[in-house]
């Protein structure tokens, strides 16, 4: 059972190793001679006069909430796709009902301007 995840483990180890190696190598090999001008947020640009951190628009939060809703929808596609051949038409109709109700949600969001940025 556990042996079947060995490729996944190898993949994770390669990814971590590669990222770690690249970051370490660029840190060790790259020359670091910071000067005041180099450390400015925009080199040879306009000097910022307000802090970079500030409150962001609530619209981002709406985007995040809508993302979660359709992310949860998407997670149900996974077992459905695995079983699609086994469930035949029954599974397809079932999922169409599920998607239909969420289609209403999408239509509502669209109509109320949730997808517009203004």
């Amino acid at each position: 059972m556990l042996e079947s995840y060995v490729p996944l483990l190898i993949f994770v180890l390669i990814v971590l190793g590669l990222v770690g190696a690249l970051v370490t190598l660029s840190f060790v090999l790259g020359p670091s001679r910071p000067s005041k001008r180099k450390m400015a947020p925009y080199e040879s640009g306009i000097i910022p006069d307000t802090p970079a951190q500030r409150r962001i628009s609530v619209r981002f939060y709406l985007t995040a909430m809508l993302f979660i809703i359709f992310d949860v929808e998407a997670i149900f596609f996974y077992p459905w796709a695995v079983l699609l051949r086994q469930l035949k038409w029954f599974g397809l109709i079932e999922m169409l009902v599920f998607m239909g109700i969420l289609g209403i949600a999408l239509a509502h969001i669209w109509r109320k301007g949730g997808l517009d940025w203004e």
Partner: protein
Amino acid sequence: MAIVIFFIAAAMAVAGGIGVISFRQPIRSVLSLVVVMIALSVLFLLLSAQFIFVAQVIVYAGAVMVLFLFVIALLGPAKEIAKSRLRFQASLSALFVLALFGLLWAMLQGVTYRQPDKTVDMSIFGTVQSIGLGLFTKFLYPFELTSLLLLVAAIGAIYLSRKEGDDR
């Protein structure tokens, strides 16, 4: 092998949990929480709960953490960093932790582990196939109700984020 992976993942989860409560910048706390989520997903995989593993990575480590980050960004930098450390809460929390561990210890004394049902095929237990079969046949009605729940959530999200006096 499994026990080694368990201890690595458990240590990651505990380290992430300590990070969540000890970093003073909320952004770092959230990123530590992502580490906790990823470590927990490995534990789920060790219990051969494939579907929960996927849900944990995609929904919790992905979407829910994005929401947390956005909440922090919405609050703005002024409220982000705690000005003073909490004082009397430390001793209070020690008391609660002791109580919790006492409770856990007391519960573990009386635990008897059920033998798995012989009629259940253990080779597919917890796999995506068995979860899906349950979800799309036996629990068909709750599954469809989930979409209604998501619909309500969508309407609520739109309602909450509308502007003051905007009655679209």
